[in-house]
């Protein structure tokens, strides 16, 4: 039981890192990046390949994972950032699918749909599975703390204010003489790098990755976590991940007590609950459970359509 709870806390930590990455692009800069699964995949594959094939240390692998995802973030941005928000959302969703297709089909590099098994974990060989779980919880906590620190510094610095200003009114910022493109590009790079870190953390924990891990469902889960927690707020990303896992995992126990419906219906009901959860949070706690900060006008004042 304890082992299960630790494992879920590690998962919360990994989700929280991913949510922090998403918070930089979506929460702070307002870039509708639905390509999270793709950046996560690049991070996971990078560290898996360099540690397994070239014998790099896990730390080096993780650093490379961050750089590789960040670099890809820049590459994707150059092609897409000038698109309108809604177009960008769909193009980045497609980008994640393409990453998955490449991971599936370029067997020479990624071992294809077989995936990469036996990825090393810190001291995995020397420890019992339970001890390893504890150690990895520590590693996750440390990496999460570093990511949180970076994101907090970013949010508080003048840089973060510019990003938020871009999110709230891009035209205004560009009128003020700032190059919004460059700021958004940097936000994408930082966000993608953090998502890559999340992917690398996943790879070294589970020890196995395959293209199926990086389906767009995970992007949606992380969006859900961030929205529940409070978009724009770094602690919200953390808290939202906790609530998400509590919802995903807790529903197993609750639904196990529901009689008279079959296994498929139970599974369907669980997924329904996830979708409904997101809808309810959006409806009744629009700023998330930990709001970014009390907002007075920014959104409402720009909405001149009459009440419905």
């Amino acid at each position: 039981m304890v082992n299960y709870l630790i494992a879920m806390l590690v998962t919360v930590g990994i989700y929280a890192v991913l949510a922090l990455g998403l918070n930089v692009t979506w929460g702070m800069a307002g870039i509708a990046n639905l390509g999270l699964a793709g950046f996560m995949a690049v991070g996971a594959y990078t560290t898996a390949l360099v540690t397994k094939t070239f014998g790099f240390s896990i730390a080096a692998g993780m650093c490379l994972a961050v750089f590789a995802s960040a670099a890809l973030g820049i590459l994707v941005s150059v092609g897409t950032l000038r698109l309108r928000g809604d177009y960008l959302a769909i193009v980045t969703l497609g980008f994640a699918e393409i990453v998955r297709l490449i991971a599936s089909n370029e067997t020479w590099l990624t071992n294809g749909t077989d995936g990469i098994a036996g990825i090393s974990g810190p001291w995995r060989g020397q420890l019992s599975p339970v001890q390893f779980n504890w150690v990895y919880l520590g590693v996750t906590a440390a990496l999460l703390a570093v990511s949180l620190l970076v994101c907090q510094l970013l949010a508080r610095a003048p840089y973060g204010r510019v990003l938020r200003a871009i999110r709230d009114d891009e035209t205004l910022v560009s009128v003020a003489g700032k190059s919004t493109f460059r700021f958004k590009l940097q936000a994408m790079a930082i966000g993608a790098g953090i998502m890559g870190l999340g992917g690398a953390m996943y790879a070294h924990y589970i020890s196995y990755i395959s293209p199926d891990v990086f389906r767009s469902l995970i992007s949606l889960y992380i969006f859900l976590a961030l929205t529940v927690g409070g978009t724009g707020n770094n602690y919200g990303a953390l808290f939202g991940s906790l609530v998400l896992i509590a919802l995903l995992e807790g529903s197993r126990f609750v639904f196990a007590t529901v009689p008279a419906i079959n296994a498929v219906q139970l599974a369907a009901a669980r997924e329904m609950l996830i979708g409904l959860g997101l809808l309810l949070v959006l409806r009744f706690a629009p700023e998330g459970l930990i709001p970014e900060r009390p907002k007075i006008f920014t959104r409402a004042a720009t909405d001149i359509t009459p009440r419905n």
Partner: protein
Amino acid sequence: MSILAVEGLIAGYTASDMVLKGVDFRVEEGEIVGVFGPNGAGKSTLLKAIAGLIKPRQGSIRTGGEDIGGRHPTEIAKRGVVFVPQEANVFNAMSVEENLEIGAFLHSGDRSRIIGKMLSRFPELQAKRKAKARSLSGGQRQVLAMAMALIVEPHLMLLDEPSAGLSPIASERLLDVVHEINRHGVTVVLVEQNVRAALRIATRGYIFVDGRNSVEGSAHELASDPDVRRKFLGH
């Protein structure tokens, strides 16, 4: 009975920020009432509240003895009170004729006849009837916006800075059109930055300061008030 009577109106865009802080405002049949004041004084907000785009927090808005405060814009339009916004007041992607058809949406009679009548009343629109509204000049666009509002044969027309962004000549011409409309029996509330030009056609005027009506008087009184002259007429 006044055609429009606003009493103690408090309203704003968000719950915490009331742009209108207690407005008393009255319009009699057949008038052109000018509304003047610095930016942010609440002139446009008043028109939006009357038109039903903003819900009043307190106070009443009466027309024909009925309180219309908080009603749906469509219902207010059905009562013969039409609003012409300052910006985005035509359907850009639609032709002039189609704009007028939307204007006639609430009209129960023969729509093509009334549209034809409107086109012949404004020859500049007649010439461009098939053109998309976005291709019109600024002045033509304002005329179209007013024509669209007039099509339902309203009693009261609320105009929000129709001359904004127009050349002085075009803006003079536009106010002549407003005057002409008024002479056809439509009462007009006119928000204007160009106080001098507006006072030329207005019967009466209000001056707004910080969400309240501070000065009221006939056009003549306002034009001769030294304070108004200094602040709004440049001498």
